[in-house]
């Protein structure tokens, strides 16, 4: 059975990363922004796995495990921050969260 070329996976990974980047740049809802960050992390994971398979090396899969652990921690903290901000400011529109500017 012929395997899928590695470059296809890398192309998909690049497209996913770009979609996530567009979302982070134009969205106002921090929850959607978090989802887009997850999308970018997953795109990088995909290319890690693809290149790891390509070179027959375990390092790609190791990195994916660590990226997943850090993504889980990041989502827990980030959503906690969003809840805390919503509690004090009654909004989560990131255009109105500018206290650090002053």
């Amino acid at each position: 059975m012929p395997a899928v070329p590695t470059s296809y996976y890398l192309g998909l990974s690049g497209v996913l990363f770009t979609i996530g980047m567009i979302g982070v740049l134009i969205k106002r809802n921090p929850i959607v922004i978090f989802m887009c960050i997850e999308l970018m992390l997953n795109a990088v994971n995909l290319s890690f796995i693809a290149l790891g398979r390509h070179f027959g090396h375990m390092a790609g899969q190791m990195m994916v495990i660590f990226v997943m652990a850090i993504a889980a921690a990041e989502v827990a903290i980030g959503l906690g921050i969003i809840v805390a901000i919503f509690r004090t400011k009654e909004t989560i529109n990131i255009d109105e969260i500018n206290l650090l500017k002053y």
Partner: protein
Amino acid sequence: MQALLYLSMSAQFIAAVQIIVYAGAIMVLFLFVIMLLNLGSPEALKERGGLQAPAAVVLALVFLLLLAGVGALGGSQVNHLMNPSVIASYGTVDAIGKTIFDPSKPWLFPFEATSILLLIGVVGAITLAKRRL
């Protein structure tokens, strides 16, 4: 979807972890926070017009072109079909465990550091979510 892609690249353990972590933990967290926030009308989060969205799309297209350029330059090395004769145990729990806990490889310390990171994450999330400590 992504787990299926991992499976197709003989990364069985990562595929299982992907499903467990994303469907079991991250998606539930997202849904829980959406439920907690109770945002009401979507008007408050209306996307504003202006130059931001077109600029972002243009920048993203430039980024994609850059990636495609890098792929075209270095792509000849990864373009051929992978050698299917990788070791049969590649990507199994056995192989991953033996790699991660092998003291001669550099993964043991990051593994332990990750456990501390997760502990800090738990404590931080509780601290943020509590009204008063």
